């Protein structure tokens, strides 16, 4: 038992010696925490890596995309189930992935491969107010901020660029990227330079099931 504990301790110590916990906080211009922001760290020294999760899910629930924003690593397959009892017709005209997918009740569509980095804005041709995003990054080190605007990423020591993306941020991720040298744990605050675009999440607030003609 003692040997096992010692081994575990050694393992943790050696892990700590080359990995850091980066706690990232994203604040807007008014210093308010911003949730659901995709934060990601890229490095020129990183060899191309296979995505950690081979498959991600973008569901349709109560005529909304769920999650509203899905961050995936390049070369991830995204499956589009339909948890509603009605048909959806999902599409994107974004350069990172142009597609359309008819999602019938009870029929499962094949997952789609997201190979290009960037924003994929999703719409539904049946329900015009539906809007969702897939953000494709070329690194395994990404997270989305929580309601306190925080995200924790574990990554090896090294030189990185920290970028952030959210549909309400009008600045390009490159324009306010932070270059950092990671050595152990760190806390970093990202401040969004420009004012945020209007919040249109109020479209999701009405869950009254009767809003237009069937």
């Amino acid at each position: 038992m003692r040997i096992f504990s010692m081994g575990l301790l050694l393992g943790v110590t050696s892990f700590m010696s080359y990995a850091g916990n980066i706690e990232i906080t994203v604040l807007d211009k008014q210093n308010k925490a911003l949730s659901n922001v995709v934060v990601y760290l890229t490095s020129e020294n990183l060899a191309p890596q296979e995505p950690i999760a081979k498959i991600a899910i973008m569901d349709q629930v109560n005529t909304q995309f769920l999650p509203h924003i899905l961050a995936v690593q390049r070369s991830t397959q995204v499956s589009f189930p339909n948890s509603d009892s009605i048909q959806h017709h999902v599409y994107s005209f974004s350069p990172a992935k142009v597609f359309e997918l008819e999602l019938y009740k009870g029929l499962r569509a094949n997952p789609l491969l997201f190979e290009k980095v960037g924003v994929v804005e999703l719409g539904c041709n049946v329900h015009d107010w539906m809007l969702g995003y897939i953000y494709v990054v070329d690194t395994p080190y990404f997270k989305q901020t929580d309601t306190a605007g925080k995200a924790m990423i574990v990554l090896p020591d090294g030189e990185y660029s920290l970028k952030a993306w959210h549909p309400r941020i009008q600045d390009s991720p490159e324009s306010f990227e932070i270059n950092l040298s990671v050595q152990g744990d760190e806390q970093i605050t990202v401040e969004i330079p420009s004012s945020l675009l209007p919040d249109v999440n109020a479209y999701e607030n009405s869950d009254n099931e009767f809003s237009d003609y069937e």
Partner: protein
Amino acid sequence: MNGVFLMRVMLGVLAVFTELSMVNAQQFSGLVQANVVKADGQLPWLDGGTGIVQYQDDSLNLQQGLLNVKGKFTSSLSYNVVANVYQNGEQHLGVTQAVVNYKPLSIGSARFKARAGFFYPRMSLENVDIGWLSPYTYTQSSINSWIGEELRVAGVEVSLYNSGRSSRSPLSWEVLAGAFKGNDTLGTILSWRGFAMHDRQSLQNDRLIFANYPTVNDPDGIFHPSYVEPFHELDGRVGFYLGAHLSYYKKTQLRYYLYDNQADPNVVNHQRLYAWRTKFHSLAFSHDFTSNARLIAQWLTGSSVMGQRFVYINFDAWYLMYSHKLGAHRVSARIDNFRVSENDIFPNDINESDGRGLTIAWRYNINKSWQLGLEQHVNYNRAYNRITLAEQPKRDQRQTLGVLQFKWR
């Protein structure tokens, strides 16, 4: 045919549709409502009387039965057909809507869509459930009871629209125009019976009857039958409508329509059905105070003329409804006000009528498929041509409904 056999056949049909909708791109949905009525004994227009609610006697009835079939021809071309069965009225089986929708995918702030077929212009914010029914009350507003029985277009509608969410705006808009035929007799029932309150939509092949008013049937007078077949084309002219929708998020909606059937009021067919030149404005509004509390209102004002001003009416109606959802329960209350006034060359043929109504309904979703509801409706109405039938022009009417609904999708 015994009841058990009929039930087995219906369950079999249901099973087939459910099976089809599970595995096919075609979507079958439907609804059946059975009711128990406490009625006030007054004979409704549907049976040749002058009452303006649907039932005369305390009874059990099939209130609604409909099948809605949706499908796609291509990614941008879809269709939708609603077939109904009705216990009351002249025809019992038929179609109330059949439409082909064209909605191509496109980028841009203003997108295009179109539809063609036999359908309702989307004026109403009340009739948003499957098959143009109201999810709020069973007895619909006087405005939409009339639209359901006399108005439908056989035509084409084109729209330009913008979805606010994708353009990062709280406002969404749509402007549209429609051209149609086949709604020339619009205004007939309003002129003689006046407004009524019910949920009996006319089928495409329907005949809508009303009381045998002697001044209407008189061969030396107007000489019109005591019915109208609402979807006839009599004069070959094309009618039009224009509409504008504006919404703030999904919370507040405003819809304006101008409808003009452009009919030639001097055209009459072999049945002595006239083309009525009917035009009106409709303004509808709804606002969600919370996701459970909704206010809905509509105002309709217009005129209709038949012959050489044999009949000329102005009509005006509005309703105000509040609907509240509490978990699986929905309670709705609506007040209605309606009036038809005349200004024509046959003063003995009376077209003046008016009234007001109160409808309160409770609907409880037992589960996804079954719903139970209770409704109390009262109205006070006057129709002065009842005098020609030796009836009092003034009426108080009341109707209590208990409704069991089965819906599948």
